[in-house]
C-alpha cells in the first residue's frame, strides 16, 4: 500500500522558469512593501498596502514554492482553513486590548482623577 502510494506520488515536476518568475515577483512585492515605509505613507493607505503585499507574498510562497496549488483539496483545506481561526483570536484580543487601554487611561493616568 505504502509502496503503491509512493509510485503515485512521483513528486512535483514543474518548469524551473515558474520558480524564477515567482522569485522575481517576491522581490518586486517586498520592494513595494519597503517603499511604503520609505515614502512614509500613513493611515489606511499604509495599512492596506502593507497587508496587501504581505498576503500576496505569503500566497505565492504557499501556492508555488510549497506546492499547495497542486495538492489535493483534502490537504489544502486541512492546512489552510485552521489558521483562519487566528482572525477570531485577533478579534478577541483587539477587544481586550481596547478595554485594557480604556482602564489604563481612565484609572491610571496622572490627571484622570
Amino acid at each position, binding site marked *: 500500500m505504502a*509502496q503503491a502510494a509512493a509510485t503515485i506520488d512521483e513528486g512535483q515536476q*514543474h518548469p524551473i522558469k515558474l520558480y524564477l518568475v515567482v522569485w522575481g515577483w517576491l522581490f518586486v512585492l517586498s520592494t513595494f*512593501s519597503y517603499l511604503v515605509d520609505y515614502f512614509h505613507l500613513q493611515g489606511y493607505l499604509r495599512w492596506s498596502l502593507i497587508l496587501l503585499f504581505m498576503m500576496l507574498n505569503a500566497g505565492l510562497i504557499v501556492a508555488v*514554492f*510549497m506546492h499547495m496549488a497542486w495538492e*489535493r483539496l483534502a490537504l489544502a483545506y486541512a492546512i489552510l482553513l485552521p489558521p483562519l481561526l487566528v482572525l477570531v483570536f485577533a478579534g478577541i484580543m483587539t477587544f481586550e*486590548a481596547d478595554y485594557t487601554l480604556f482602564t489604563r487611561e481612565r484609572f491610571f493616568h496622572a490627571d484622570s482623577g
Partner: protein
Amino acid sequence: MPDTTPTHAQAAMAPQAGWRSFAADWSSDQRAFKSASWGKTMMWIFLLSDTFIFSCFLLSYMTVRMSTTVPWPNPSEVFALEIGGTNLPLILIAIMTFVLISSSGTMAMAVNYGYRRNRAKTAILMLVTAAFGATFVGMQAFEWSKLIHEGVRPWENPWGAPQFGSSFFMITGFHGTHVTIGVIFLLIIARKVWRGDFDQERKGFFTSRKGRYEVVEIMGLYWHFVDLVWVFIFALFYLW
C-alpha cells in the same frame, strides 16, 4: 514492490476532482491525504502547529502595542542604518528580507532538481540556501547586538513603550532559532544528497530507513515556512 493490479479498493479511491474531492477523500475510510505521503503530511501538520505558535507571538505583540499608553518606538527609525553618509530607514531589515527570499528561491530549485535526480545541482543549491540562511542569522546577530548596545532590553528601551523590547526579542529570536535549525538540517540533507543516499537507498543513521528525494521537498516545506513567517514579521512588526 508496487502492486499495479487494479483492485476494487483502488478503483473506489480513483481520485475525484473539485471541491467534491474534499468530502470524498476525507470520507473514503482510507488515507485522507491521497497525493501527499505521510512524511509530507506530517511536516504540513507540524507547520500548522508552528503557525499557531507564531500567531500567538504576533497577537501578544498586537495586544501590548494596542493597550500601552506610552508611544511605540518608530521601527523605521530604530532599524535605520547610516550607509555612506545617508540615513536609510529599515535598510538592514530590507536586505534580510531579500536574503531570505533568495534562499527560498534556491530551495525551490533544489527540490526541482532533486526530483530530476540531479544530485550535484540539488546539493549545491541546498548549500547555497544554507549559506543564505546563515547570512540571515549573522545579520540578525548584528541587529541584536546593535540594539542591545543602544540600551534595548526586554523590560526597557530609550525610545518608548518597554514592551517593544520583549516583543522584538521574543519574535525575532524565535524566528532566528527556526532559521538556525533549518540551516543545520539543510546541511544534513545536502550531505545525504551529495553522497547519493537516496539513489543507493542507503539506510539513515538515525531511523535506519531508506530515504527518498521527497525528503528534499519536505525539507523545503520547512524552509519556505521560515520565509513565510518572516513575511508576516516584516509586515506586522517592522512596517506597521
